[in-house]
């Protein structure tokens, strides 16, 4: 591989990540962090749901009662934000890959984020209503 080929290949390999500056960098970083968090949650989720069969209904219900505590509802809300950010930024990526809105990519990003914020508000309303109705401490 010549020097020029190498430069072309490395430039092309960087296309998906965008430039290492500005809004695109932050969007990419948060997208990746949220993605890794969601992978870890996925396996935890499979583990928790499998307690129903592996350990029985009573054990599973005990675990779910723990998840109803304020601390876990707040953690759940963080998870909802990770899903919404990763999902809506992902919508932007799919749109760009389809060639839609490339010339307005920043506007597309902010519209996606606006949708994420509105959806988050709905989940936050639901979560805080639940926390209030339930009362009690953090754990």
């Amino acid at each position, binding site marked *: 591989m010549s020097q020029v080929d190498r430069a072309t290949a490395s430039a092309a390999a960087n*296309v998906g990540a965008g430039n290492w500056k500005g809004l695109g960098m932050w969007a990419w970083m948060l997208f990746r962090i949220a993605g890794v968090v969601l*992978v870890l949650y996925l396996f935890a989720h499979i583990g928790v749901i499998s307690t129903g*069969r592996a350990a029985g209904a009573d054990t599973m219900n005990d675990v779910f009662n723990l998840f109803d505590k304020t601390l876990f509802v707040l953690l759940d809300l963080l998870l909802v934000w990770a899903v919404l950010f990763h999902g809506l930024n992902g919508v932007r990526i799919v749109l760009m890959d389809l060639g839609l809105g490339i010339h307005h990519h920043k506007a597309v990003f902010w519209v996606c984020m606006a949708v994420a914020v509105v959806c988050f508000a709905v989940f936050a309303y639901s979560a805080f209503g639940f926390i209030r109705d339930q009362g009690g401490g953090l754990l």
Partner: protein
Amino acid sequence: MKAEVLTQSKGGVWAWLFQRITAVLLIIGFTSHLISTHIQAIGELNYRNIETRLGSAFFVVMDVMLLAAVLYHALNGVRMVVLDYWCAARSRRTALAVFLWVVGLAAFAYGLWALWPWITG
């Protein structure tokens, strides 16, 4: 330019395509999943609640589809992260892919095993 970028993608064109297809499935699936668990059934999640939900064919199809799609999407994502920091030889990249497929299929089988009593009622 675009074709050039695609053929030079480290992950492969099919993986790129499937990552997009599963992304669209996950957007649809999670909308349903999160509304039903975190808004409609908030605070009511328990063994019986899941049993009731999985009594409907819609949620059985939705949950099994979500399990398969999310595992593919998550593990292919892990593969892309690893390839970004660890540009290994082709044989090791294949080993990574095979390893992740084994993990994914095992997790799918385990998840299906866990859901089975609810699905069969």
